[in-house]
């Protein structure tokens, strides 16, 4: 055999191998849903990278797959990555069979045509609390079901409040809250801390005050809306809140509160576990509305949804898996693990029976409201972006609350559909 021919064979083998690698790259992409004949393998994406194969959550996902007669390949992503990953996968026709995703993203994905409706899936949503499923409703169609909910309330430092002579039960509206903050400041401590950062997280924290003032997201420049911004601005001006709130995430706000020198912190259900470790006595009250009563807080927490598949036949097992995950007994385990409030009333009652401290949170979740509700859908992100920019401008003093909210409303109105 001659030398060149040997080389040719070698090169051909190399070329084939290379082509094989590229083909593998082209069709693999981490999704097994498209593998030929492999319809018994289902892909499942969630935003809980903290859980590995040994956790209750992953075991539940796998056992739900097994009872639906399929094997589930589960991957945990960072929450902020999941939206773009899902969009990208859908673009390439390789969307996972199931995703668990942050509730305000549902309407964005639904608008992109990525998700199936619960009707197409054949899923019964009647047992879920309506104010929670509302975040997944777009133009009358439901695109997923909540797996658990969380929301915001005010944690207070009972020792500090006692020292300042503040009775937490007296905080019923904005005036009584301001009075309590003034008393705390008089004793040399900070009144309240929160997250007023210029991201979605800041908007999430602002909404209870915004909605509690009676304002509506469709009009950011109303006098009620401006009064909510001024509430925050005044806290800063009067020294009730530390200046760091402008840059605080909810985690850093919690750290400030844990240090023991702040009376109140606006934070979420998910801090319940950390609250047990606080070195002082603490309690929870709902966020007061301007005129009194509990303000509607935004709902947090994830939805389970089913991205559109080319093969309709896959939905049957998908529906079984979703039903299994949201089965009352399983929800109780899942929501206890995640420190969430269940989206189904009967499970909520069980949660309170197990841990009475959850009662204020169950009430708060009952009063809560989805950010994308009121059929705002994909207009919500546009409005939210303008809103956080406005309260940041007002808090840093680069514009008055009126001017900032007026500009925000004009910019939002020009962009919404």
């Amino acid at each position, binding site marked *: 055999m001659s030398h060149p021919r040997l080389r040719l064979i070698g090169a051909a083998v190399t070329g084939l191998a290379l082509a094989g690698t590229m083909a593998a790259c082209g069709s693999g992409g981490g999704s097994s849903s498209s593998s030929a004949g492999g319809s018994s393998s289902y892909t499942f994406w969630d935003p809980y990278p903290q859980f590995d194969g040994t956790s209750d959550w992953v075991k539940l996902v796998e056992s739900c797959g097994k009872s639906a007669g399929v094997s589930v390949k589960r991957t945990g992503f960072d929450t902020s990555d999941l939206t773009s990953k899902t969009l990208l996968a859908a673009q390439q026709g390789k969307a996972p069979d199931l995703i668990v995703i942050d509730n305000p993203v549902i309407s964005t994905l639904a608008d*992109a045509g990525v998700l199936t409706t619960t009707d197409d899936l054949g899923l019964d949503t009647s047992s879920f609390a309506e104010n929670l499923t509302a975040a997944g409703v777009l133009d009358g169609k439901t695109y997923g079901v909540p797996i658990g909910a969380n929301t915001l309330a005010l944690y207070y430092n009972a020792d500090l409040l006692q020292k300042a002579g503040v009775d937490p039960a007296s905080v019923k509206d904005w005036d009584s809250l301001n009075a309590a903050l003034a008393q705390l400041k008089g004793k040399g401590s900070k009144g309240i801390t929160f997250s007023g950062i210029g991201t979605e997280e800041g908007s999430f924290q602002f909404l209870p005050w915004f909605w509690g003032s009676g304002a509506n997201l469709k009009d950011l420049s109303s006098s009620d809306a401006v009064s909510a911004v001024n509430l925050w601005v005044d806290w800063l001006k009067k020294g009730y809140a530390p200046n760091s709130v402008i840059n605080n995430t909810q985690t850093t706000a919690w750290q400030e509160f844990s240090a023991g020198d702040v009376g109140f912190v606006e934070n979420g259900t998910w801090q319940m576990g950390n609250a047990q470790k606080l070195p002082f006595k603490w309690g929870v009250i709902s966020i007061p509305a301007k005129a009194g009563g509990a303000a509607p807080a935004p709902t947090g927490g994830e939805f389970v949804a089913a991205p559109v598949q080319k093969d309709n036949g896959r939905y049957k097992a998908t529906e079984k898996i979703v039903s299994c995950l949201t089965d009352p007994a399983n929800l109780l385990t899942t929501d206890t693990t995640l420190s969430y409030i269940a989206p189904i009333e009967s499970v909520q009652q069980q949660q309170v029976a197990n841990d009475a401290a959850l009662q204020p949170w169950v009430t708060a979740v009952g009063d809560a409201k989805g950010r994308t509700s009121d059929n705002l859908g994909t207009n919500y992100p546009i409005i939210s972006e303008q809103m956080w920019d406005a309260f940041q401008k007002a808090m840093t003093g680069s514009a008055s609350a009126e001017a900032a909210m007026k500009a925000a409303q004009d910019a939002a109105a020009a962009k919404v559909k």
Partner: protein
Amino acid sequence: MLATAPALRDETTVSSRRARVARRSYRGLFAWLYLLPVLTYLVVFYAYPLYRNAELSLRDYTVRSFVSGDAPFIGFDNFRTMLDDPTFVPAVVHTTVFTFVSIGFQYAIGLALAVFFNRSFRLSGTLRALFLVPWLLPLIVSASTWSWMLNSESGVVNSALTAFGMPQINWLTSPTWSLTAVIIANIWIGIPFNLVILYSGLQAIPDDVFEAAALDGASGWRTFRHITLPLLRPVSAITLLLGFVYTLKVFDIIWIMTRGGPSNSSTTMSTWSYELGFGSLLPHFGPAAAVGNMLILVALVFGLVYIRYEKVQASR
């Protein structure tokens, strides 16, 4: 293989013209086959992403059309949106200030330290190693540490300022200071890079030049001004260029420390691009890609300036 070599030579001597032609085209084919891996690499990891980014910036992508892939071609509308955005001018100004002030200080301090360490003394190796720490730390660690140190209420910097009777500064939460705060952190992170490259540049300058200068009675400053600096020029040029490209696209420090805020007061082109693409619940892919492409173009222009400078130097 070796054993077949003589046979091969025999074969060659008797082979016909046709076989030679065939072999030559084999050779051409082999050349391409050997090039294939690197070509594939270049196409997959460089050409295609650049092409996609250009395409993203020229089409009207919404989440819906991103998925269905039928985004209409809109020419330079995304660039127009970018130019009309009220964030554009501040972002350009911040990027320029951030880049040039950072590089200026990094280079000056890096050079001063390099000259200092060039005279070996006891423990100079240990000290030099210590100066490398900012470079070795993961950016998330250094940026978080800086944001903790610069915290308005509980940061050590403000405690130090008040201890000396100076007023407290809202480093990260006031629009007038946030850019300064991220620049300070970035300078600290960039010094080691300048120090290392300039130090090795100094080591390459022969000692006898300095000896000659000393014999002629040149002062320290004059030696530096007329010998060190000119001999260091090529190294300085590459340090400054690399520094420029790195600093232009700095994202993590700013994002971790201020998220480009408050109210865009520390937004640069790179944080703005990220914010447009991934910062809200609704991605604006088109304008985000347009901003990203602008950055690539600016970096490219400076790269070309550097190549031109090299050519001029070489022809001298």
